């Protein structure tokens, strides 16, 4: 079973992301982190198969989380789930090694469209 780490400072949004993963057909084992710093610790402690992260979070934001992971040698597949989807952010996410960027609000279909090509 695929193990995913969902990082978002909103508990409500983490629940929505987890619910949407299930609706999209991904019955994955889920762990949660409330900010980038927690997520970094969680990956260091037990690397998941994929990280789904918000961008805008206190303590450590999503892009700094991604940079920290790569700097520490973790190549964990990483996707953003964020309320902003400007061209600039998409380019930055891609440059830093993110596999996709899902913009809120999203649907189960949005998740499948972003995740399926990565899993294939």
């Amino acid at each position, binding site marked *: 079973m695929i193990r995913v780490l969902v990082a978002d*400072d*909103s*508990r*409500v*949004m983490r*629940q*929505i992301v987890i*619910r949407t993963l299930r609706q999209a057909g991904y019955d994955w084992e889920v762990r949660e982190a409330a900010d980038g710093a927690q997520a970094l610790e969680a990956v260091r402690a037990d690397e998941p198969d994929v990280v789904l992260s918000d961008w*805008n979070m*206190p303590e450590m934001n999503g892009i700094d989380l991604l940079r920290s992971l790569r700097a520490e040698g973790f190549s964990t597949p990483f996707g953003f789930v*964020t*309320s*902003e*989807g*400007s061209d*600039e952010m998409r380019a930055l996410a891609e440059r830093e090694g993110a596999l996709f960027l899902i*913009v*809120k*609000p*999203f*649907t189960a279909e949005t998740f499948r469209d972003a995740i399926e090509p990565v899993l294939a």
Partner: protein
Amino acid sequence: MSQVIAGEDVYAIAQDIFASMVDGDVGTIVPWEGPPPGWQEPVTAWVDLQGDWAGRASLTTETSTAHALARALLGFGEDEPVERADLVDAFGEVVNVVGGNVKSLLETTGSLGLPQVADVDPGLPGGLVLSEMVLAWHGRALELVVRAVL
């Protein structure tokens, strides 16, 4: 993209959010008909856009409506109680998504702040209202305002 926010774009964002995140169905949020609501126990959530384009997206409603919204977002039953922390989280997240989508409409390299929630709208000194609308969600009023700071 532009530096101007059109009311129809903000309305489309609200429709998307409620269809995707809240109700799982389209058409659950429509323009409010009739006189503007007089708030009894309001709650306001807002998020600031900072940088070369500064402004704020805010959402105001009755506290009871914010509770209903939180229940819908959390998948709670109709009478299930909502803790204040969950209300703040859920209501703030709705306006956070509004703000993120508004920012995506703009030619800005600025950043989005973290959502804030309070019982009293703190106002925005120097703020110019770009879009202001009252929406009805299952018959409950929500006021959505986008301001720019000049």
